């Protein structure tokens, strides 16, 4: 992607965000994902141009981060230990719809261990916990929107929905942009996983291209030889209008 500007040289942007494409995102009511049936609003959303309450948003400084926050292989492991599993780097850039890198944004991730087991009291899958794997990590994007995590590839796992539904291997991402209207949670899938197209949660999304946009590409050029393979996962947040002229013209 091109067009990265140095945030140090620009004043904060305050233009309205591009509207969300609700046909691209999953709808609220998706009966094949059963839990959505009673948790989906049924009335139309009230559309509203952004106000300051959505144009602004919390920003987190590097000071919140610990040294191992983006290293899930080690951040829960005992001294000298590391998590079991296929070692990978997950890297990419956080961009907006204009292709501009989103700097200084907090990314939080969570995932199952290599066997597909989450460290959570509601988890019932028989696969064992890894004593050296917690499953959470976070990072703040650099000036060009770039980020990187080190982790292990999570396993697929069964979940109670249909009689025999399995989630594809995935990593959950929570993303803050610069405005609260950009707030997003999504999931990253892995290139070539045959479980992706069978998953009722993946298939809440109607557009195949949107699913492909959540599927990270294996990048052998970014691997660390004899250590870790690499997957590239770019994330896109809503773009925003330029405020150079048009706000005054339109009287906003």
């Amino acid at each position, binding site marked *: 992607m091109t067009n990265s500007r140095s945030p140090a040289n620009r004043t904060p942007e305050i233009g309205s965000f591009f509207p969300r494409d609700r046909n*691209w995102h*999953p709808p609220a009511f998706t009966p094949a*994902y059963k839990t959505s049936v009673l948790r989906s609003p049924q009335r139309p959303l009230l559309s509203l141009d952004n*106000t300051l309450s959505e144009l602004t948003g919390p920003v987190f400084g590097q000071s*919140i981060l610990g040294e191992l926050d983006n290293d899930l292989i080690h951040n829960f492991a005992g001294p000298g230990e590391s998590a079991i599993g296929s070692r990978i780097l997950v890297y990419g850039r956080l961009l907006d*719809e204009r292709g501009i890198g989103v700097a200084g944004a907090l990314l939080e991730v969570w995932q199952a261990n290599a066997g597909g087991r989450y460290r959570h009291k509601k988890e019932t899958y028989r696969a064992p916990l890894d004593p050296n794997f917690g499953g959470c990590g976070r990072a703040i994007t650099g000036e060009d929107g770039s980020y990187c995590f080190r982790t292990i590839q999570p396993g697929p796992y069964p979940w109670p929905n249909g009689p025999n539904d399995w989630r594809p291997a995935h990593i959950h991402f929570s993303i803050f942009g*610069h*405005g609260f209207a950009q707030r997003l949670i999504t999931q990253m899938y892995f290139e070539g996983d045959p479980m992706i197209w069978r998953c009722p949660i993946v298939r809440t999304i109607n557009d195949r291209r949107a699913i492909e946009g959540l599927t990270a590409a294996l990048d052998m050029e970014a691997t660390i030889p004899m250590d870790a393979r690499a997957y590239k996962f770019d994330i896109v947040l809503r773009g925003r209008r330029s405020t150079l002229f048009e706000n005054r013209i339109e009287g906003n």
Partner: protein
Amino acid sequence: MVQALGRLKESASQTAGPYVHIGLTPNFAGISGVYECDLGTAMVNDKTRGERIRVNIRVIDGAGSPLNDALVEIWQADAAGIYNSPSDLRGSADPNFTGWGRLPTDMTTGECLFETIKPGRVPFFDGRKMAPHLTVWIVARGINIGLHTRMYFGDEETANAEDPVLMRIEQKERVSTLVAPRDGDIYKFDIHLQGINETVFFDI
């Protein structure tokens, strides 16, 4: 053919799922030692300006059951109506107020309780003042894309009556779904995902 605009599409949302606590409130989930504390649990300190309040939030499904696995975030202005954000160019917010809070709903009661201050009024995009409000964002298992709504304050009748956002709600009986009644220092905000009392959610 014409030139391509070259825009990207926003990454599609996916549900936060049942294990959202691992990523966003790991200490609450029993994963200790990775982060010092769960982000967003402390919005105020001893020096924060403004009236101390508490906000009790529940998220209720179409069967009437409170969600015991939801995650709620709130975002609000400080007591003077300024957001603690680089994008608010009107002035500096109270440095002792984060403006942002995040809590999981209780696994038994489905409630969460934010300790915060009452926000000041913030201008709408045409300059009129909005009534004091919290921006509320909800994710959970079964919610495919995070839900945006607002909480207004039950004891701000005059401001609420002239709020430009509340005035945009066509069915006037639905306005009350965004207004939390006050009981002592606690505002109680029940968010109904479905049903006759379905809360107004925003595409914003």
